[in-house]
Structures are given as structure tokens and as C-alpha cells.
């Protein structure tokens, strides 16, 4: 961390986006995390993604729980709505907010402790209900705020900084999300923004529950030999299945790809996801095969990254509940109390 806020001066080539903000306008306050923390890189990736998506900061709500990861919403999108909730309870607060005001873009930021231990149930239910959100887990495999004990995502057999071997099985949040019905599932790495930024962009434009498990090395407690969440380990075992380009609207496709090397997926809002295949025959629209592939590669000791599954036709919780398309704060008295005639109609329909 530093004590000094990032100076306001910027590179002279810094340009505003379509809604008039520069990338610097999407930053937040000075980070209090340890120097080199992977979480700060994820914050920078979120800043970059929101800038590139031309998101107006006040149209986004960021919610988090407790922990190193959950502190980070203070360090990005300083002009957006924010709610730093109770430990493990971010998903239900987010669900409530989403139901009340469906016009905002929802970003949940959590950690492996917040989502895989105390908040595992909350995580599971928000995913299976299909809340329209982007759920990012900043996964470092340790409890950084309490001096580096193993978390629930630490791999069995990996070592702590002091050399203790973990004998508990790890929770794989990606497999969980797939099994629970998430309609957008990805895994990435804080040390690879060229992969991470397009994934965040695609997730923010996805309708439904979008989940990104982001491995984020803990410099202070989990970046040593014997760790499976260190920079070196992840770089050596990273098996990216695809690379993603996100096209918004009708922007022309400038890159050229050889035939059969790409898959194009168009999401609900017209966003075109162009996936350059890195693993032959990997189909990111096949949930069952994706689950099998993940198990197989995990058994081989590899860390699979990329856009692992997407359902472009996904529906969300509002569709399931048939809620009004108007945010609740925009409903006026006439909408909410339609009068005795409307009541009579309803009663008549039930007779």
C-alpha cells in the first residue's frame, strides 16, 4: 500500500469514452492492501472494463462482504453506488437491491472466505436463482486479514507459508457455479489482464448470474513454493481454453481469424463474444462437457482459465418472478394503488 493518493496528473493521451469519462474517472480511493496484492490488479481490470464499456458510474452498484477482497470496492468506481455488507451476506443484499431497482448494473465482489466458507449458502442460492449480476470471487486460498490460514479453496496437499500441509479438500467454485446453474462462468488470473478485462466486460453485459473466479495471489501469505495460488504456480499450470474479444453493438470486427478457430456467441443485449479457441474442441456452450473437462484437467494438476460456459439465451430472476419492468423507486401512487376498479377485475378473474 501507499499513503499517498494517486496524483491527478495523467498521461496527455488519456481520452474520454463515449459517455465523457476518462479511465482515471473510474478509479477509487487509495488502496490499503499490501503492496503487490492481486486484488489491486483486479480493481484495475474492473476500472478498465467499465471504462471500455462506456458505463456511466452512477448506473452501477458494487456490493461486497468482508475480507481483503471485500475492501476493494472502495478502491475503484468511486462515483458508483456501494454497499459493504455483512460477512458472507453480499449475495442476499445484492438480490434485494436488484429486485428493487433492476435498472442498475450489479457487481458483487467477494473472496474465497466470504463466498466459500461463511457465505457458501448465500453464494449458492443467488446463483441458482439467476440473479442478474456479475459475481467476482478474488480467490487467494488464504485468510489474509488473519495472517494466512488455509481457506476453503486451498488445494489439498498445498503448503502454507510455514510449511504446514493442507489436508482438507478444496471447494472448486467454478464447478459449483456450473452445477448450480450459473449462465456465465469464467476463471481468470489477476496477473493476466489481457484475459481478465474482456471477461469482466462480457460478464457485465450478460443477463443472468455471471460468475468469475479470479485467482489472485496473496503476496504476504500465499506466494511461496508449495502454494498452488502463487504467481509462479498459476503461470506454470495455466491452461487457457480460449481468448475473448467483446464487441458491443455493431462495431466492425477488425481482427481476422482463420476459419474454425473462433466461436461467436451473441448475448441478449447484442454483445458479440468472439472466442479464439486455444484448446481444440472446447465448446463453451456445453455445460455438461465443460464440467467434465474441468474435472479432468484439475486431476492433471492444471488450472483451466477462460470463458468456460455461457448461455446466451439465459433468463434471470425477474423473468422467473414476472416482476414489473419498472424499478420500484419509479412506481408512482397510481401504479401502486390502481383503485377499486382494478381490484374488482382481479377478484372477477379469480372467481
Amino acid at each position: 500500500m501507499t499513503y499517498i493518493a494517486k496524483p491527478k496528473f495523467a498521461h496527455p493521451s488519456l481520452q474520454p469514452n463515449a459517455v465523457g469519462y476518462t479511465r482515471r474517472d473510474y478509479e477509487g480511493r487509495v488502496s490499503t492492501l499490501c503492496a503487490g496484492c492481486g486484488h489491486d490488479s483486479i480493481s484495475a481490470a474492473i476500472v478498465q472494463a467499465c471504462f471500455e464499456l462506456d458505463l456511466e458510474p452512477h448506473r452501477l452498484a458494487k456490493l461486497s462482504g468482508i475480507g481483503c477482497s471485500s475492501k476493494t470496492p472502495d478502491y475503484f468506481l468511486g462515483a458508483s453506488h456501494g454497499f459493504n455488507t455483512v460477512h458472507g451476506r453480499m449475495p442476499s443484499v445484492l438480490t434485494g437491491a436488484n429486485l428493487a431497482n433492476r435498472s442498475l448494473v450489479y457487481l458483487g465482489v467477494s473472496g474465497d472466505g466470504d463466498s466459500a466458507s461463511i457465505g457458501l449458502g448465500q453464494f449458492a442460492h443467488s446463483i441458482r436463482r439467476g440473479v442478474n449480476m456479475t459475481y467476482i470471487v478474488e480467490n487467494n486460498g488464504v485468510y489474509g486479514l488473519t495472517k494466512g490460514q488455509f481457506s476453503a479453496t486451498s488445494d489439498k496437499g498445498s503448503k502454507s507459508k510455514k510449511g504446514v500441509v493442507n489436508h482438507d479438500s478444496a471447494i472448486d467454485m467454478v464447478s459449483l457455479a456450473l452445477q448450480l446453474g450459473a449462465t456465465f462462468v469464467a476463471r481468470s488470473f489477476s496477473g493476466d489482464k489481457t484475459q481478465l478485462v474482456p471477461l469482466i466486460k462480457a460478464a457485465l453485459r450478460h443477463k443472468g448470474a455471471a460468475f468469475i473466479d479470479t485467482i489472485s495471489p496473496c503476496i504476504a501469505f500465499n506466494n511461496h513454493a508449495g502454494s498452488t495460488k502463487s504467481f509462479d504456480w498459476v503461470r506454470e499450470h495455466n491452461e487457457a481454453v480460449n481468448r475473448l474479444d467483446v464487441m458491443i453493438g455493431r462495431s466492425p470486427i477488425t481482427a481476422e481469424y482463420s476459419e474454425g478457430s473462433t466461436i461467436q456467441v451473441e448475448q441478449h443485449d447484442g454483445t458479440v463474444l468472439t472466442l479464439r479457441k486455444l484448446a481444440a474442441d472446447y465448446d463453451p456452450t456445453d455445460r455438461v462437457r465443460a464440467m467434465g473437462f474441468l474435472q479432468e484437467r484439475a486431476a492433471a494438476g492444471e488450472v483451466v482459465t477462460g470463458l468456460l460456459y455461457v448461455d446466451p439465451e439465459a433468463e434471470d430472476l425477474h423473468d422467473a418472478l414476472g416482476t414489473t419492468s419498472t424499478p420500484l423507486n419509479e412506481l408512482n401512487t397510481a401504479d401502486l394503488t390502481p383503485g377499486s376498479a382494478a381490484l374488482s377485475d382481479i377478484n372477477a378473474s379469480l372467481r
Partner: protein
Amino acid sequence: MEPTNIESPDYFHKVVDCQWACPAHTPVPEYIRMIAQGRYADAYMVNWKSNVFPGILGRTCDRPCEPACRRGRVEDEPVAICRLKRAAADNKGELNGRMPTPNTNWNGKTVACVGAGPASLTVARDLAPLGYRVVIYDREHKGGGMIRSQIPRFRLPEEVIDEEVGYITALGPELVLNQEVTSLQGMLAEPYDAIFVGTGAPRGRDLDVPGRAEAAANIHVGIDWLSSVSFGHVEKICRRVIVLGGGNTAMDCCRTSRRLGGDDVKVIVRSGFDEMKASPWEKEDAMHEGIPIFNFLVPRSVTHEAGQLTGVWFEKVAWQTGEDGRRALKPTGEPDQHFECDDVLVAIGQENSFPWIEREVLDFDKWGMPVVGETTFQSSNPKVFFGGDSAFGPKNIIWAVAHGHEAAVSIDLYCRGQDVTLRPPPGVTLASQKMGIHEWSYDNDISLDERRKVPLMETTLALSSIKNEVELGFDEHLAYAETQRCLNCDVQTVFSVPACIECDACVDICPTDCITFTANGEEPDLRTRLKAPAINFTQDLYVSGALPTGRVMVKDEDVCLHCGLCAERCPTGAWDMQKFLLNTTQAGGCR
């Protein structure tokens, strides 16, 4: 690209833009920090060692450092470096033994300096403490040269000149004043071991138009007239004055006229306003004193009645591209314009003049300039050295000082029988400024303040006497505030490949997007692939060796704020902030 060789003194020197741009390579950020700490005398000595005339230059320097200042690339205005130098001189108080003392052990060598201007005085200052006997000749009755004769007192008070010339004469050189040297041959016959020529560019270019001779009584050559004013021979000028020319001498002429009775003073210049040679601030100062500047007007003839000047006719011109594709000033065809006036001052350029040097003694080129070594300042006669305006034509005081230092190095080498082409390398130190976790020996919090203006004397009072110094200088509060705008470019970002774990923390925190980790490539390609494009080709890229992922670290030095946040965010100390201090080696410094 090959990894950057940061061991070469030039690499980090170039990053300190101000110091690199200064002909004398004054370590600017070093003395600005001293001013911030209230160590004015120390700041003065850093300057004095390097540029010899801090109080004089702090008022009159052409400031090559300021257009180079990195601050000017991240916001509108550079740091007011020049006026901070003056603040150090104004507030220095007692120097308490910081000055060198005269050397009483004569080394047996005697050096003659012709002219007592800034170049010769610098040679004397560098050589006298080494034991040389230095004899300085000048035709005027006081030392200082053009500093004393051509710069008007309202910009540079006489006490400042006396003080700073005095520091040099206190070191023991002999001044032979009121004596014009008329023959170099004669000088060479004297028992001098070396002769330094620092006679400046003493001849003002004259106007050659019809009517010039008839109205001669009211047409004056600018630098001669300024000199007459400086030495008290001229105390008045007529009411309506036209100054011809667009350089700094023209600005001094018009502003001096305003103080000697001219209340309708105009500057009329041949080129466009923007192409005038005068420094922008000097133009501003003239206009602030109610002097209009007319451009694109070429003098055609002088009108007069009964030997009395009445005005000047001008032809209107404009930039036009000729058939050869070159831009030239061509007549527009509009009718000529007449300006009435009572006096004309001609400030259209200066020339060198060496009537006293016999051509058989040393070689001259076809332009009538002596053939002088660019780094050695030695002429074709190995015993004779040149410096200042007399070496390569009219420049500024700071150039004369820089020449003087180099010539003194050459003279010292020559007198000791060594090769003058083997130049001593600069003295360089590079040391970490880390004091603790997130604590540095310099103030790395970046001030967002805008440049402070130097307070001026109220105009009516300023114009009432030529001796009233118009600029009041920064007081201590203003000077402190201005020092905080300095980005400390001498505190360098030094990168260590073995320590780097490629976590991206530095990339994320850098406010000006200077740092990129990417695949290596050729420079033109690399410049386009960085986090922010490196479009300033005068600024280097700092490229590391290959990292474990096969990528390299590339840092564009262009708009680095030297805020040290990369080093504060680095978990492994791969970035360190290290102070680069370069002192050019002066005579006797590298034996």
C-alpha cells in the same frame, strides 16, 4: 530492444530534463529541494559551482531549462526554475566560508583573459584556485562585460553584478581595466602560458536605408546605446521612439526608453510576432509597460527635415512559399506605412568583431569566425582558446559560462602538457532514497498547484527610474510553494529484473501510464504497444532484460512524475527510487 544501459551517465542525465538542457548542467532539482528546506546558502553554492552567476542568471537567464521542464508536459507551465535561483541568491545571507579562498601557491603558470565578461570570469574562477596566475584585460573601467554594459539596471541591479564579479576577483586574478587589447601577436609575445579570448559579440548590426546618414543624430545602435545608458553617458531620449528588431536587445531598448523619457515607444519587427527571437516573457514584460509591438514591417527609408529625424517608412510583408518550396517574407503589395518618431534604436542583431587578431596568428573560417574546437575551445594556435559569444557567435550568459568551464579544463590540460581532446568524465552518484517502508528522503507527494507569478513593482513607480528593479522576486513563502511543483526528476526509477515477480502492481498504480510489461520488439513498434503510446521521441524508453514470462518491462520516461508510487507498491523492491547526481568535471577536478 537491448536492455537500457543505466550505467552510462547520459541515460539518467537525460531524464533530468532541466539539467540536460542547461549548458552548464546545473543540478536543478538538487538546489530546488535545498530552497524548499530553507537552505538558501547551500542552494546558492550548488548554483555558484555550476553557473558562477546565480544572482545575475536568476534575473537574466535565457532559461533553456524551463521549456525542457517535465512539469510543462504534464500541465500548462514549467517550474519557475530561473526565479527560484534568484530566490536562493536573494535569501542566502552569510555564506560562512563556503567560498574557496585564494590559492597563494603559484603553480608557475600564467593565463591571460581578453575581456572581463562571463566567459573570462568563469575561466578565472576555475583556474585561480588551482594556483594559476590569471590576468584579465578589459577596455571598460569595471569587470562584467555585457552583463554590466548591455543588461539594463531595472532588470539587474548594479549591486548584484558587483557582488558576483567580486566573488571571482576575491580569488586573486589581476584585473587590467581601461585597457583595450589591440594585438593578439603582442599578447603572444608576453610570457603567458595560454590566452583565453572572451571578447563577446561587440558590434551591433546597423540599418542601411536611405536617410540613415542624414538623420544620424537620432538613430542609435541598440547595444551601444544600452552601454552608454549603463555607464551613465546617456540619460534621456526623445518622446516618440521606434525600436527596430525583435530580440531581447530590442526589448531592453524599448523598456529602457520608457524610463528615459519615451512615452510613445513602439517595437517594429520584420518577422511575425510569434517568430520574434525575444523570450516570450520579455515580450510580455514590454507589452505590460504599454509598448505595442507591430509585426511584418520592413524599414524602407528614414524621413527627416533639416537633419532632424521625423519618422520611418515601412513595407508590409507576409510569409509566402516560393517556387523552391521555401517560406520567405515577401511584400504584400499594400501601400507602405509611415510611423512618426523622434528617435530610432536599431536592435537587429549582433556580430563578432576581431580587428585586433592578426590573421596569420590563427585560422578563421569564411564567415570571419575563428576556427575553434567544439569541445576543447582551442583555436588553431594551441596556446589560444575562445569562449562565450566570441567562440561560436551570439548566445546567452549561461552558454558563456559553460564555454568558460570547458575552456578552463582545456587550458589546465594544455598547461600540464596533456591532450586537450581527452575530456574528463562527469562525477556521478546514484543512491537509494529509501528511508523506511513508504518513506523517502524526498517529498514524493505531487503538488497540483499552478506556477506562481513573480510580483512586479507598480508600473508608474517602475517607470520612474531606470534603477528601480521591476521584478520583486519570490518571497520565502512564494518560493517554497513554487519548489513544491518540482517533480524531482533526478530521483530515478531504477528497475531490478531478478527481484520482479510481474504482479502488475506498478502498472496499476502509475498515474501517467508509464510502465508496461510486454513482449520485446524494435523501438518504433514497442512505442505503439505501450499502455499509453510513447509519442515523444525525444524521451527514451527504459527497457529491462527478459523476465521469467519472457516479457520485458518498458518504461516511457516522458511524463513520469517521479512520485515513487511504483516503488511503494512493489512488493519485492524491484523498483527503487535512486537519486542521480551529476556534476560536470571542472578544471582540476579529475586529475
